[in-house]
């Protein structure tokens, strides 16, 4: 049951990331998606992967995204 709720949140977050015009917001939402994926990995009895996804997918990727957005532009259509 927890899984279903998490999945629903995750998919909604993914759609939001697709739609959002604010790239920074989209990246934060994408980080949320990664985080939920990490939790799902944990639920699937994969703690190694969960750790990796949390530290790499959720944290470092987001950092890289944020840096990139700061170097470019924040809003999608300008």
């Amino acid at each position, binding site marked *: 049951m927890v899984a279903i709720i998490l999945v629903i949140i995750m998919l909604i977050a993914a759609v939001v990331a697709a739609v959002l015009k604010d790239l920074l917001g989209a990246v934060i939402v994408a980080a949320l998606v990664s985080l939920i994926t990490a939790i799902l990995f944990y639920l699937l009895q994969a703690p190694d*992967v969960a750790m990796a996804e949390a530290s790499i997918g959720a944290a*470092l990727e987001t950092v890289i995204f944020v*840096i990139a957005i700061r170097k470019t532009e924040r809003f999608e259509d300008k």
Partner: protein
Amino acid sequence: MRKIIALIFLAILLWGITKPVSRIPFGTNKIKVAEHYITKDITETGAANVVTSVVVLYRGFDTLGEVTILFIAAIGLASILYLPRKKVSDEVLEESSLILRTGCRFLFPLILLFGAYIFVHGHLTPGGGFQGGAIIASGFALIFLSCRERVVSTVKLGVVESLAGMTFVAVGLIGLATGGYFLLSFLPKGTLNMLFSAGIIPVIYVAIGFKVGSELAGIIGNLMERTQ
């Protein structure tokens, strides 16, 4: 128009994908090879964490490739962001606050320590070189972002990553020289759940930890500094 076509393609893809998925019912999988790993793991490798033994020993060659890929990304990123003139800018951002700086200076060694713990214990507990390396890198990211100080220059990071990579290959070659197989686990298996056990796993994971940490830190550092 474009969106509709995209959706049509995705619908067809969905249609196709249901076929194999329906042949793989969720939660029932357990097949020969994996079973071998699980049952023979302790006697063959001496590592408590089966995932680790798969990653480093059974499929160690993949891991070598994977490390290479990260290496390529770091090098490629540096070459793309390369600035001909030594124009690595001390970009003028507002000074970060004292609290932040103090906080991250306090946190930084702890994060490093935690990362090191993770990769040293890769064969015993969840985690390993990649996770530990990533945590170390996030420590560096913290420093880069909050304190805006360059703790370690990218050149030094480069040396660390090269040495770590060479260690990996060298371990493999030593295995080839001693036992005739590349990446052979030539060290003793030791006793289960001890720190120094499971053959070459700790050695390789330490190397990977340093490598991944320095590469990811280098990537973030380069992205921060090398772009105006």
